[in-house]
């Protein structure tokens, strides 16, 4: 089986390739990249005027299975990924039960093999039940295929537990991903401490709650030689702490989410639960700092923190509504519209943060169009504009603060292992 993606702008950030040309896919592999490729019997897909990139990798999603299938499951979550242009996702372990043992990691991988349409890389819990007390069986989970460890949403508050996690995980050369939030400093989650919170009668989460833990974990990573990855950096101070730690040679990487480089706390005004996310939307200065961090490389990767919730959970009193944004299907156009069109990142840099960067952080294959690589490919139409309509989402989670917003740069084709799973904004197959 041969497919030729004809005449697109091919960008492969891992080797700084940016040409107009063709990609020949043979079976499940990239066979060649170059001008004027031809092959008898090949299916030709015209991608002229479009951008052809390695399959995008989202290193931070919540697929909710097992336990919260009413919010999302592996089937719907991977379809959302495919529709969003992602060929691989790393899923967080805060399911029910928490993914804190090898057998549960294996179960998620099996389930993904049966029902998923993109690659699924499970992240295991750091501590048993993500309770922050005792290390979970990291080796067992690693052997079963966990690509990183995180108690996402339940930050490891105890510094000694975190030190041990970093030291222990370093034996397998995988990162410990921390959702940085010093809980004792938090009034209510999901809203920044500041003017909007004050007016709404909420105390909010100060930037310091995030920064205190970013600083602590950078120090612990330096102490242990372990690799800490800072999830969803949202404050100017956190960006600066990571920048300084990197300059000192600490093994720290970081990601930013599209909502944190796009929206400010103003989006929460009126108790908008669709803009309730943890860490919260911050100030314009923080948005600018996150963008600057992406630009200078302090922030390595872009990850969605895709957090689907049921409509009736979000339709509640602000404090009772769960935090999170269904982000897989708006990420690419937000990157194009907010970062590339504004000149914060070149297209090459932006794609790098969604391909080769997360692949390197997690130590997984992918993120490359090198001949011989798995044919995981995403095609983006940079000119295609769309008004975000949550009803069109493949995700069960329709919780987005971007509804009604016009964005440009839509993913139009997603290919996993040589199989087209999304074309023209629609999932292919049943």
């Amino acid at each position, binding site marked *: 089986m041969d497919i030729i993606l004809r005449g697109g702008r091919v960008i492969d950030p891992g080797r700084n390739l940016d040409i107009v040309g063709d990609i020949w896919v043979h079976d499940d592999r990239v066979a060649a990249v170059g001008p004027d490729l031809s092959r008898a019997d090949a299916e030709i897909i015209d991608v002229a005027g479009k951008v052809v990139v390695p399959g995008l990798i989202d290193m931070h999603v919540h697929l909710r299975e097992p336990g919260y299938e009413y919010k999302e499951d592996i089937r719907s979550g991977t379809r959302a990924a495919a529709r969003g242009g992602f060929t691989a996702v790393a899923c967080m372990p805060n399911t029910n039960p928490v993914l804190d043992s090898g057998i549960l990691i294996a179960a998620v991988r099996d389930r993904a093999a049966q029902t998923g349409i993109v690659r699924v890389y499970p992240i295991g819990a750091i501590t048993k039940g993500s309770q922050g007390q005792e290390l979970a069986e990291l080796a067992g989970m690693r052997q079963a295929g966990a690509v990183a460890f995180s108690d996402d949403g339940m930050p490891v508050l105890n510094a000694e537990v975190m030190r041990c996690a970093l030291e222990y995980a370093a034996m397998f050369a995988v990162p410990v991903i921390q959702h940085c939030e010093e809980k004792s400093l938090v009034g209510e989650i999901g809203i920044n401490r*500041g003017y909007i919170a*004050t*007016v709404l*009668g909420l*105390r909010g989460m100060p930037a310091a709650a995030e920064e205190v833990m970013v600083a602590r974990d950078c120090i612990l990573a330096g102490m242990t030689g372990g690799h800490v990855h800072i999830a969803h950096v949202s404050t100017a101070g956190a960006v600066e702490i990571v920048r300084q730690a990197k300059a000192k040679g600490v093994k720290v990487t970081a990601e930013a989410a599209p909502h944190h480089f796009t929206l400010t706390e103003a989006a929460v005004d009126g108790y908008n639960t669709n803009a309730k996310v943890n860490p919260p939307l911050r100030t314009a200065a923080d948005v600018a700092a996150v963008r600057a961090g992406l630009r200078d490389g302090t922030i390595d990767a872009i990850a969605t923190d895709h957090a689907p919730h049921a409509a009736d959970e979000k339709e509640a009193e602000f*404090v009772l509504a769960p935090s999170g944004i269904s982000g897989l299907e708006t990420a690419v156009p937000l990157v194009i519209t907010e970062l590339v069109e504004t000149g914060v990142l070149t297209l090459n840099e932006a794609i790098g943060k969604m391909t080769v960067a997360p692949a390197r952080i997690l130590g997984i294959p992918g993120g490359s169009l090198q001949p011989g690589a798995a044919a995981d490919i995403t095609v983006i139409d940079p000119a295609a504009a769309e008004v975000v309509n949550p009803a069109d989402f493949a995700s069960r989670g329709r919780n987005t603060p971007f509804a009604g917003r016009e964005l440009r740069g839509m993913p139009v084709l997603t290919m996993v292992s040589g199989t087209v799973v999304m074309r023209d904004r629609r999932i292919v197959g049943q």
Partner: protein
Amino acid sequence: MRLASKHVLGLQEMGERDIETVLAVAVAMKERLRRGEKKTAELKGRVLVTLFYEPSTRTRTSFELAGKYLGADVVNITVAASSVQKGETLKDTARTLAAMGTDAVAMRHPLSGSAAYLARLLECTVINAGDGMHEHPTQGLLDLFTIREKKGRLAGLRVAIVGDITHSRVARSNIWGLTKLGAEVTVAGPATLLPPDIAKTGVHCCTDVDTALDGADVVNVLRLQLERQQKGLIPTLAEYTALYGIDEARLALAKPDALVLHPGPMNRGIEIAAAVADGKQAAINEQVTNGVAVRMALLKLLLGGGE
């Protein structure tokens, strides 16, 4: 006369005109109460539900009397008596009330934003009787009414609001109402009980209560929730009283005829000295009477025929 807004969710969103309308009608209502005309049929056939998720004596009773004086049927639902304790969500409770043909719901709820949430769910009028730390608009209105009644005006007056600003819905409603009508507001309290960026609402903000009181026309003393001490926001109640308690000596820093308000219930000897609470400058009992008049005005404007 009608109000521009169907709901009363907060004084931040209530227009100046609506505030003035309520205050004007409340003058007539108070006069009616003074004359002993406590029963009319203006709201005959109308149903007001008071839905209280927090204990309250004066606000709930005030709404009930206001409704009854105008001839409305009033149903009181409190947490203990309702199905809320069985885990029914506010959404389901609201829909149940709507299905019973309620015309207005006055709700007290511990969560900020719950009144706005209820208003989105219901077709009928929602009156916020206090939502978390957000707003308590009817308290704000009765404070405005009381100040204007005693001082003859609001514009240009210097008002000090003293105490736990962070957790106070009364403070927020006072701030919006007073600044809209031209008063100059200073909030004062310990740094741990002042919310960030409060000055952006258009008030002065300080930690030194004497500065706030200096030359004030009105001192609005907030109730100190005793749990603030347990949570470590202040070291001891005694130290709070020493630094922020309003006693006669401190009150002397304000204008000689300065008015003292307190939304109640008072912690005598903590945020307010008994001598001040019972002194001639205090209008604390008057506030309660005015609360009925203001709520009558609101109900008439919201539920009346619109003549």
